[in-house]
Each structure stands twice: as structure tokens, then as C-alpha cells.
């Protein structure tokens, strides 16, 4: 109720989002934090699951086409439907806090399996052969030769998965899970007599900023992990 009174007393101009943020910063920052971990946990979990699956798709070539098709199909399930489907499938209560991370992990896996398989395929055949011939075991070769070389391809996929997660988390705000998506709900609820833009614009701005920050972190991390690529660019 207090929210509404304050909102009503303020401007409804789209550019009032900063004032709106200052007025509700405790709530907004809490939602921002929710948004941060809800976007990140699925990418990390998705990568951990996608690594062995992607490896299988690379190791046994016949696995690759069906695996990629299934992953493509998973990605086409509308997010709102997936949020609703997760609790019954995973035996959770409706609006369980794990509902969103689990659904988004499915999307991340769907994106990253193919990326991991393609990244491993980008390891030159003679490099892999040389590693085996020098006495690397299979696991050791994967960890210390193939994965490091696959980093640029996998990182490109991580960027897509992370940014798309930031936008998908917001959808979960509309079914009542706390995150920046709640700002859009607020905007809708506050548009009683006319459209009330500030929380909606604030939600968009924060989502975009968050996506930019994540993207930058992944790009910098990739640069740190791949010093050998910088020397090429540097020439």
C-alpha cells in the first residue's frame, strides 16, 4: 500500500526509473541479487552436466545427431510452460524456489551440449593424436589438452546461455518468483488509470546492465584462460 501511494505521488514518465529505484532500492536490490544467482547457477550447473554429454557426443559420433536434435527440442519448450512443468516432473511444490534454477538448467544444458561437442571437435586431429602418442590417458588428455583448446568455443556458448538466462529469469517474475521480473509485474499493477512506466523501464535497464556485466566477466575470463590467442591477435 505504501508503495502505491509513493508511486502515485511520483511521475509516471519512463525516465523517472532512477527516482523509482531510489524510492524502492532495498526491494529492488534484493530482486537484483535474486536475479544474479538465478541467472548464474543454471549456467554453472548446465555446464557441469553438458561437459560429459558433449564429450559423449564427440567420442561416439553416432550420438551427436540425436543428442543435438533432442537438445534443440528442449530449447523450443516455452519458458513459462517449462516453469509450470518442473514442479510435477521433479516432485516439487508449486512455487518451490528450486523451480526456476531447474528449468533454466534444462535450457543451459540444451545450449551447451552442442557447444561442448563442437568445441572438442575444434581440437586439431594431429594435436589429439600427438597427445595420445605421448602417453596421455583419455581423461588426462581431455582435461589438460582438449578442454583448454575448446575454451574459446565453449566460452562463446556460455555468453549466449548466460545472457539468455538473464532474460528468461525475468519471465519467472510473472509467476511470482522473486527477481527483477517482479518489476514488470509492479508496473502492470500500478498502471491503474494510465500506463505507469518507471518500474518497467527500471527492470529493463537492470536486466540489460546485468547481462552486460556477465558478458564482460566471461570475455575477460576467456582472455585470461587463453593467452595463446592474444598473441595471434597481437600480430
Amino acid at each position, binding site marked *: 500500500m505504501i508503495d502505491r501511494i509513493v508511486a502515485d505521488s511520483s511521475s509516471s514518465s519512463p525516465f523517472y526509473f532512477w527516482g523509482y529505484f531510489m524510492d524502492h532500492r532495498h526491494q529492488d536490490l534484493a530482486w537484483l541479487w535474486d536475479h544474479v544467482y538465478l541467472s548464474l547457477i543454471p549456467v554453472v550447473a548446465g555446464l557441469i552436466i553438458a561437459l560429459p554429454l558433449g564429450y559423449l557426443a564427440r567420442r561416439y559420433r553416432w550420438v551427436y545427431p540425436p543428442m543435438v536434435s533432442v537438445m534443440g527440442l528442449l530449447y523450443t519448450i516455452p519458458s513459462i510452460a517449462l516453469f509450470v512443468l518442473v514442479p510435477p516432473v521433479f516432485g516439487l511444490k508449486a512455487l518451490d524456489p528450486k523451480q526456476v534454477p531447474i528449468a533454466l538448467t534444462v535450457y543451459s544444458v540444451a545450449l551447451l551440449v552442442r557447444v561442448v561437442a563442437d568445441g572438442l571437435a575444434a581440437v586439431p586431429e594431429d594435436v589429439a*593424436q*600427438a597427445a595420445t*602418442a*605421448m*602417453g*596421455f590417458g583419455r581423461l588426462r588428455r581431455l582435461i589438460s*589438452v582438449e578442454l583448454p583448446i575448446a575454451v574459446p568455443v565453449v566460452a562463446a556458448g556460455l555468453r549466449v546461455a548466460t545472457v539468455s538466462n538473464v532474460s528468461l529469469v525475468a519471465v519467472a517474475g510473472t509467476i511470482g518468483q522473486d527477481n527483477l521480473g517482479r518489476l514488470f509485474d509492479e508496473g502492470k499493477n500500478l498502471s491503474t488509470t494510465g500506463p505507469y512506466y518507471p518500474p518497467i523501464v527500471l527492470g529493463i535497464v537492470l536486466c540489460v546492465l546485468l547481462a552486460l556485466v556477465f558478458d564482460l566477466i566471461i570475455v575477460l575470463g576467456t582472455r585470461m584462460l587463453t593467452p595463446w590467442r592474444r*598473441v595471434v591477435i597481437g600480430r
Partner: protein
Amino acid sequence: MIRFDSVTKTYPDGTVAVDSLSLEAPSGKITVFVGPSGCGKTTSLRMINRMIDPTAGTIWLDDKDTSQLPATELRRQIGYVIQHAGLFPHRTILDNIATVPYLLGWDKKKARSRALELMERVGLPTHFAKRYPVQLSGGQQQRVGVARALAADPPVMLMDEPFSAVDPVVRDQLQEEFLRLQSELGKTIVFVTHDIDEAIKLGDQVAVLRVGGHLAQLASPAELLNEPVDAFVAGFVGRDRGYRALGFSTAGTLSTRDEETVRLGADIPSGSSDGWLLVVDDQAEPQGWLRLDSIPAGSSTVTDAILHRGGTLARQGGSLRSALDAALSSPTGRGVVVDGDGRLVGSVTASQVLELIEGREQVRT
């Protein structure tokens, strides 16, 4: 010593890649597998370190049956060099070379100092240590490949067309250095190539394989050139094998004729007995020929630019082939002979060399 004992490789589709191959690659020697594509030479090589498992037969490494050893352990004691080097793009040159020592659990400091030592050994500047493979030329990468294979000082080296992806000049250089290195290290080497000239140049013994993985002939290079066992081998070793075989016969000490010489940088003399003068530098190393009747106008001293560089040099005590080639390639018809340090000894003519060749034939028959 590596011994193939009736080794056969048949693929599931029925293709026979290697057919009952039996041969021995003696310790400390270079054995070359050579043949057209599809002759099973690479398959045979890869069966030694079990990159490919034989369908039948046994490969012995000294007195051990290789199929009884753990594959990774076996491979760490066998150096392996391949065509495009196959360096790890994400590791520095130093860490690439130290790969096997790391795998064997050497401490980092020892592995790296060994790697640095090898860089010098294969002729790489040590300031390349922190570079990445992509910053090196093909020939330099191949040197790193050889250094990497040598890092843990394995008794055995397998080399799969290691020099075929670099340009001819660099290839020649790498081959020479490889022979020099081998004369110091004395590894047991199995070397695969499709290039018969490379096989003859590098091999202590050469195994010629024919399509379908049959061994056609196993012999020393000279024997291969002089006595090819059948039409296939004769055709494969090539047309000018009579001439190339001379490369394996020593000319003995050539009785040379003295040459009139002039030093580089000296005034151009007015005449000589036949209009040609041999130009040498201050160390008495031959530089080229000077043709007195075609000196460009305005030249008064002997400079690099006016030399005729047609002739190759023969080393005293070298092969009949190099002696004959020196004579044939010389613009004066006189081949220049030098001593072991590259200093002028004198000259020989083609007919002198041919006399030696004919004398040799008479001794043999």
C-alpha cells in the same frame, strides 16, 4: 630393437592394411618405411606404440611383447614426431617440449631445464621458450616437435613424415640436422616417408612396402639402388638410381690438379691459362669462378657480384656422386675439391671420376 613378427592388420571392412609383416629395426639405427599411399607404412608405425592394435602377430620392443605393456607407459618411452608437429597450441614452446617429463612426474624445474637444453640442441633460440606455437614458422615448429619427442630421452623414436610439410630448403636443413643429432644420440628410429630420396638419404636400412601392406624389400640404401629385388622396387626407387647409387661409394683420395686462384677483393688479374680463375676468400674457401673475358665494365677488383657460382663442391674423401656432380656442374668442367674444413684442395675432371667408377666396377666383377 623393434621386431615385427608376422604382424597383420585387417580392418572390419576386410581391407588388409598390413599383411604378415616381419622385420627388425635394429637398435641405434634408422629404419625407414617407404612406399606409395595405401602401403600400410603409417599403420605399421602406429602399431609400434599401439595407437593401432594389430589383428595378428606380435611387435617386440627389445624382449618385451608390446601388447603386454600398459599403452600409456609404453608410449611415454617412445618419442613420436608427426607431419605438422601437432604441438599444443595452448602451451608455450618450453611447456610443449616438457610434456612427457611432466607426464612422468619430473619436477617442474628439472623438466624445464631439460626443455631449454633441448631447444639449444635442435637449434632453437632459447628466447622462443615463452612463445606459443602459432608464433613459429613450420620449420621451427617441427624442431619443437623433435625436441618434444626427445625430452624424456626415450630409446625409441617414431617419425611419421616429419619433414614433408616444410619447403624443400628447410626440409634439407632439417634432414641434415636430424642426421647430425642421430649421430650424437644413436636412437632406435623408425621413420615413415613416401619420398624415396628422403628414405635413401636418411635410412640405415629401408623397407619398401607395396600396396596391401606387403614388404617388397628390406635393404641398405646402396643395395636398394644397386639391386632392386623386383620391377616394383626398381620402378619405385626411380630412374637415375645408377647415378644416385654413387652417393654411397667413396671416391677415396682424389688426385687433384692445382688451380690458379685469386682472392676476393684483390685486383682483377689480366690473364690466366684458360680465361677462368677460381676465387677464394681469406680462409682459402672457394667462392666461385671468374671469367676474365666477360668482366662487367668498370670492375677493377674481384667482388661477390661478378662471380660465376655454377659449381658444387666435393669434399676430399667424399662420395663419387659429389665428385662427379662437382665436375658436371662446374662452368670450367673442373670440379672443385675442398678439405674437411672447406678449404680448397684442387680440382678434378669428370673423366677422372669416371675412371675411378670404371675401376671400381672392374674390382667388383
